């Protein structure tokens, strides 16, 4: 597979389209499954892992269409390529470091990514742009049923789908949205909202998932429990809370414009200025600035950058992407310089006149 090609194309879920896409970047569902008559992944030998890949790949490829997917053997990839897949949210850091006997099947539009032999035998992920968890579930459910018709899953009528870690047992479903909450952050209401979210049985994480810090006012909000409710109910539950939060964000956003207009506009235009002119930018700084730009786009203040471009830029400025793009081994500072260049060029070329 051409990882080089991958970094120049656009992930379909970065399109900036879909419901509430000014606030919700994407909806994601992850399903975990294990195959009966094999131990869970950590206890599998290399031969067993290869057997599992042989068992599962044909069914998956058949269901999605061989012309629509890339199949990757993770231990055959070099370090940089694996990093790129992590940066594009296609494989997990766990798979990046493990690698032995692992494979990934990725749809060409990057909407679907199936990891084989990560923490569980099968980790299926589907991501769509905007607030569309139900459609995401329909896509992933279809694939799950296609696999289940041919390969027997580890399942118990009492506990549901059996996973290596009990925190995932039952539906083994993790549904999350990537949500941008700049107004709530700026008006200092964010802590209250997030505490409320946790009390309702949901988890909040930063942009890079478990254990990551909050960058660019981006939050991943997901269900916490996977056992005891049906899949549609879990999704409905999350949707209800997210809709409320979107409402709060829009309210706070309006407040900002009414009460802190000049401060907010200044913040947005300063970010615009820096991105167009700076010679050194770190990833973290970019995330902060892009949050202000995103807010500016939502307000209609910034008219010549699209959400699609901003999202794409968010991927391109990541460390491994830069190194691959320039085909160079770079130090952190050199990267910061190249990052600034890439940003200036990209904005120049993609701006709507």
């Amino acid at each position, binding site marked *: 597979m051409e990882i080089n090609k991958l970094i120049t194309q656009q992930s379909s879920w970065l399109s900036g389209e879909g419901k509430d896409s000014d606030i919700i970047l994407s909806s994601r569902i992850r399903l975990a499954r*294990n195959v*009966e008559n*094999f*131990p*869970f992944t*950590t*206890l599998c030998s290399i031969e067993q892992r290869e057997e599992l890949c042989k068992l599962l790949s044909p069914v998956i490829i058949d269901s999605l269409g061989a012309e629509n997917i890339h199949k990757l053997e993770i231990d055959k990839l070099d370090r940089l390529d694996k990093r790129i897949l992590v940066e594009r949210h296609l494989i997990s850091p766990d798979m990046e470091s493990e690698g032995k006997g692992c494979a990934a099947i990725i749809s060409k539009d990057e909407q679907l990514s199936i990891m084989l032999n990560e*923490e569980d035998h099968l980790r299926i992920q589907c991501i769509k742009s905007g607030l569309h968890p139900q459609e995401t579930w329909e896509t992933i*459910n279809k694939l799950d*049923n296609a696999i*289940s*018709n*041919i*390969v*027997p*899953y*580890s*399942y*118990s*009528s*009492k*506990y*549901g*789908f*059996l996973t*290596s*870690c*009990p*925190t995932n*047992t*039952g*539906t083994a*479903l993790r549904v999350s949205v990537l949500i941008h909450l700049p107004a709530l952050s700026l008006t200092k209401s964010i802590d209250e909202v997030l505490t409320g979210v946790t009390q309702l*049985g949901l988890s909040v994480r930063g942009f890079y998932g478990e254990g990551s810090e909050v960058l660019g006012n981006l939050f991943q909000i997901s269900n916490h*429990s*996977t*056992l*005891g*409710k*049906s*899949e549609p*109910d*879990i999704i409905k539950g999350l949707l209800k809370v997210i809709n409320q939060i979107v409402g709060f964000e829009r309210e706070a956003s309006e407040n900002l414009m009414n009460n802190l207009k000049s401060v907010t506009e200044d913040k947005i235009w300063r970010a615009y200025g820096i991105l167009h002119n700076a010679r050194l930018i770190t990833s973290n700084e970019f995330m902060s600035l892009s949050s202000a730009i995103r807010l500016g786009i939502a307000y209609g203040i910034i008219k010549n950058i699209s959400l699609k471009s901003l999202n794409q830029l968010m991927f391109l400025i990541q460390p491994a992407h830069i190194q691959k793009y320039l085909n160079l081994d770079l130090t952190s500072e050199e990267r910061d310089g190249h990052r600034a260049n890439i940003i200036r060029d990209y904005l120049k070329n993609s701006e709507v006149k």
Partner: protein
Amino acid sequence: MKCNDCDKDAKNQFIIVMDNEKKTLYLCDSCTETRGLTSESSKDISKLHTHSHDDTFGSNIVLKFAAQSEEEKNSITCPKCGTTYDTFKKVGRLGCSECYTTFDKLIDDLLKKIHGSNIHAGKTPSGNPSQGKNESDIISLRKEMEICISKEEFEKAAELRDRIKTLEVQNGNK
């Protein structure tokens, strides 16, 4: 430990308060039942009379029902993959699907803590499950149903009853 009543191997440990004195009593499973000291009844203090031939235990308050000692719990091993409960506690991962049956009771509490429930309410796999699995599932679902009934959670019990019926039909058809 040897059973106080019949001298067989005793897995169950009781602490009995009698005349302000604490005594430890070891009983095997069948003598535990004979005395009426099953885990459900021990929660209802009014039912706690020990009816044994040894009158010194008369009507006492059974303070604690410890099913197994910590050591014994930790050494329970999954017959299929060899994972011990101790390993699971340290690593946080189970070894195979059989572990869920092996550590059934121990995992139940953990699941309730994490998820607020220990019963799956979502989809079933679209393919055909293996029959052997069904039998152990039927047994554990039945136990859960009885617990629901004793707690008067009749709606939940009815759901479980229906699920058991489906599994029994599946078994009958194979």
